C-alpha cells in the first residue's frame, strides 16, 4: 500500500512538472515532450492505483486503461511531430510565440 502511494505521488509530480514545462517552454519539441511527461504521470497514477485493493493480484482495469492511453499518446505524439515539422518547413522555426506579430 505504501509503495503504491509513493508511485502515485511520483505520478502527480510528473504531471505537475510536465504542466510547468508545457507552460514555460517556447520550443515546440519541448512542449510535445512535456505533454508526454504529463501523460506518463497519469499512467503512473493509474498503475499505482491498480494496487489499491491490497490483494496479491492487482486490478486489471487500470492496466487496460493505460494500454489504451499509450496507444492514444503515441498517435497524438506522431501527429504533433508531423505538425511541428510542417511548421518548421513553412516558417523556419519551431515556436508559436511570435505569431501575433507576424500575422498582423
Amino acid at each position, binding site marked *: 500500500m505504501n509503495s503504491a502511494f509513493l508511485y502515485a505521488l511520483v505520478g502527480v509530480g510528473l504531471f505537475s512538472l510536465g504542466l510547468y514545462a508545457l507552460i514555460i517552454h517556447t520550443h515546440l519539441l519541448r512542449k510535445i515532450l512535456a*505533454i508526454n511527461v504529463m501523460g506518463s504521470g*497519469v499512467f503512473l497514477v493509474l498503475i499505482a492505483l491498480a494496487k489499491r485493493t491490497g490483494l496479491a493480484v492487482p486490478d486489471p482495469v487500470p492496466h487496460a486503461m493505460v494500454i489504451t492511453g499509450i496507444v492514444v499518446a503515441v498517435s497524438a505524439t506522431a501527429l504533433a511531430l508531423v505538425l511541428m515539422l510542417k511548421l518548421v518547413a513553412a516558417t523556419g522555426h519551431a515556436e508559436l510565440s511570435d505569431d501575433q506579430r507576424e500575422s498582423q
Partner: protein
Amino acid sequence: MTGTPWGIILIMLPLAGGMICFLWPRVSTVLGLLTSLAVAVSVAGLGWQLQEYGVYRHAIGGWGAPLGIDLYADGLSLLMLAVTALVGLGVGIYSTGYFSCEDSQRFWPIWLFLLAALNALFLAADIFNLYVTLELMGLAAVALTSLTGSKDALRGAMRYLLATLLGSLAYLFGVALLYHGFGTVDIGMLAERVESYPIAWAAFGLMGAGLMLKTALFPMHFWLPPAHASAPAPVSALLSALVVKASFYILLRLWLTIFGPLNEGIELLFGLLGMMAILWGSLQALRQTRLKLLIAYSTVAQIGYLFLAFPLAMTTGASAWHAMAYLALSHALAKAAMFLAAGNLLRFGGHDRIADLDRVVQRLPLTAGAFALAGVSIMGLPPSGGFIGKWLLLEAALAQGHWGIAAIMLVGGLLAAAYIFKVLGHTFTQADISHEPVAVPASMEWAALLLAMGAVLLGFLASPIFSLLDIGNAFSLNGVSP
C-alpha cells in the same frame, strides 16, 4: 429493447466510410456524401426506436457494464446526434463545391473519422470511453484544421493540438481519480456511488478544467479564434458547430449525473465564467476587422450562454436545461451557416476583410440571406431557434431574480446585433476598392442558406424537440428543488 442496433451502425458507418475513402480516394466525394446521408437516416431510425421503446442501451459484444463497453442514447444524445448529422450533411454538400479534387480526397476520410468519433462520443456510457472518443475527436479535428497547410493554419492547428491534449490529459487524470475513489467508470454506477469526498471534487476539478479548455470557455478560449479562423470554411463550420459542443456535452453529462447532485456551488462559477465569456467574446467580435475571426469570437460568446444554464437550473431544473439544449442546437446550425457564408464571401472576394465587402447583397443574395438568417438566430430574434433558447433562459433568470444574468444576456444580445449588423451593413455598400468577383458554386450558396433556414425553423419546433429531449429524463436527476 431489441431491434436494429442503430448505435453500432452510427459508429461503424462513418468509420468504414472513412477507411474506404482513404484507401480509394477516387470515390471519396460520392462515398462521403452517401455515408453522411446514411448516418442521417440511421439517426432517424434511432429516433424512431427511442420514441417507441424508450432509452437505447447496447452492451457491445454482450459484455455488460462494469467490464464491457455500453452504448447509451437518450433524448439529449439523440438531438446531439441529429444536429451532427444535419450539419455534417450540409457541410458535405458545401464541400463538393469548396474543395479542389485533391483537397476533397484529404477532407473526406478525416471528416468521416471525426463523424465516427462524434457519434461514439454522444453514445458513450462510461467516462473512459468518453476519454477515448474525446481524443479521437481532437486528433481528427486538428488534422482537419491543418488541411490547407498554410502558415496560419499550421500555427492554429498546433496551438489547438497542445490545448486539446492538455485538456484530455486533465480529463484522464480525473477519470483515474474517480475510478480509484468509486471503483467504476460507468456513468450510471458512478451516479449511484459517488459521494462528496475530496477525491470526487479533485476529479471534477481536473475533468472540468480539461473540458472547459476544450470547450473554449472564457478565459480558456485563447486557442479557438486562431484555429477556427485559419481552417478552411467547411472545417471551421464543423469545429464551431459540433466539436466544441461535444466537449460541452461531456461536461453537461458529468454534471447532470455525477457532480450536479452533490451541489456545492460550482454552478455559480460556471455562471460567472459564462457571463464573462458573453461580454468578452462579443466585445472582441465587435473589434475584429476579419469576418472569420469575428464569427470565431462570436462562438466564444455563445458558449458563454450555454454555461448560464448551470446556476439557473439549480432551482428551475429542466426548463433551464431545455433552454440550453435549444441554444446549443440552434447555435450549431446558425454558426455552421455563418462560417459557410463567410467561406462564400472569401471565395467571392478573395479576402474576408469586413470593410471591403463589395455589394455582396446584389451579387450573392443567397449568401447574404444565409448570413442574415443565421444572424437572426445568433442575436436571438424571433422566430428563430436562438430566440426560444434565449427567451426561456431569460425567463428562468428573471423568475429567480438573477438580475445580473438577465442584464448580461440582454447586453450580449445587443452586442451580437451590433457585430452582425456591422457585417450586414458592409454587404450592402460598394467598397472603396471594387474587385472582380469569383463565381461561387450554387451548392455552396444553398448549403449555407439551408442550414441558416434550419436554425430559424427550429423556432417553430419547440414542442416536438422538448418532448424528444425528455426521453430518458436526462435532466431529472438534477431536478426541481422540492
